[in-house]
């Protein structure tokens, strides 16, 4: 009972039921889609069972791109309207996008070693993806080092827009330049045996992306409220417990 009162005083509400349910659904979807992929996909003619890494590497990459699209949109809205929620949403999507990009790099590396023969090479696709990752790690560092919320919002919106402009470059890199990474597969180059599993895993990762951003956004709003409480307390020259 007293715990609930303390939570209310700190401005923290319980997580909404829809978010808890959606998180459970997202987790179940990822597990289900993975099981579906493993049970229905025959070994590929060229790379055998290594093809199954596609079901985590590609969904991670697609959804990282989507997350940075959200960053772009929310950053433009913030610069336009100066609404704090847009800034917090951009920051949340940037953090989740960075995690998904890191996953893409890691899983791609694990895929590259047995198929290409190397963990890493400096071709345009891998290099531009690494640049994308570093920009958004820098974005998060910039936010944590800037205390003034207005300045933090403006600077990170600028970096967020600039970083998101990299997404089309990463996507097109395999067509614009010679790379070790192959060009995108299309439904024509992907045997029907693999299409449903890839789409299902893409959707499952999308659910994961949505709930991750929602949780992070909720945490960002709580952090922001705590910041305001601390500010108010400091101005009144008294402790937090008043």
């Amino acid at each position, binding site marked *: 009972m007293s715990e609930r009162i303390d939570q209310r005083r700190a401005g923290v509400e319980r997580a909404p039921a829809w978010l808890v349910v959606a998180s459970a659904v997202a987790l179940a979807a990822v597990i289900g889609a993975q099981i579906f992929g493993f049970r229905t996909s025959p070994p590929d003619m*060229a790379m055998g069972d290594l093809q199954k890494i596609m079901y985590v590497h590609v969904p991670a990459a697609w959804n990282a791109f989507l997350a940075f699209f959200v960053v772009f949109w929310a950053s433009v809205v913030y610069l336009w309207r100066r609404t704090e929620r847009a800034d917090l949403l951009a920051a949340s999507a940037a953090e989740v996008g960075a995690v998904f990009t890191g996953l893409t790099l890691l899983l791609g590396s694990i895929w590259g070693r047995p198929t290409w023969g190397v963990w890493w090479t400096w071709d345009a696709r891998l290099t531009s993806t690494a640049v994308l990752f570093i920009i958004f790690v820098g974005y998060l560092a910039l936010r944590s080092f800037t205390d003034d919320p207005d300045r933090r919002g403006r600077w990170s919106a600028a970096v967020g827009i600039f970083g998101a402009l990299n997404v089309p470059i990463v996507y097109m890199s395999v067509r614009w*330049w010679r*790379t*070790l990474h*192959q060009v995108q597969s299309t439904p024509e180059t*992907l*045997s029907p045996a693999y299409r449903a599993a890839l789409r299902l895993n893409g959707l499952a990762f999308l659910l994961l992306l949505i709930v991750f951003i929602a949780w992070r956004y909720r945490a960002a709003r709580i952090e922001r409220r705590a910041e305001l409480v601390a500010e108010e307390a400091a101005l009144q020259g008294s402790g937090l417990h008043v």
Partner: protein
Amino acid sequence: MKGRRGVLIVGTVLVLSGFGYLVWGGLGSNIVYFLTPTELLAKGSAAYEAPVRLGGQVVAGSIDWDPGALDLRFQLSDGTSSLEVRSKGAPPAMFKDTMGVVVEGTLNRAGVFESTNLMVRHSNEYTAPPEGHRPVDTYQTLIREEDDG
């Protein structure tokens, strides 16, 4: 405060223009990850003894693999010209006839490309095996050839 803002604006403009130059400017067409045999041979005497990446397709039937000495020789072609490549060590399992490869190394005076690193460059096609097919028959070509003698 004013000064910091100026630095931020100048910095942003510099980073953006540098980035724009890299991507859309003259450098864009020069970011060449590998040369084809034709491009390498076109360099004439400058092609020799200079570290470079060479890309192309393994010419069908040209693979000469000595599993005892881990010595691999094959012809790498871009459709127009081809070069003999010599590589030490076992290649990736996907290495086989007509597969795309990128090798890092140097072209020696004898006209043989000495590779220090061999990478497989596969296509974007993923194909399910026909009914009753053993996938091992397809993707472990080198090992199977070894078994057959």
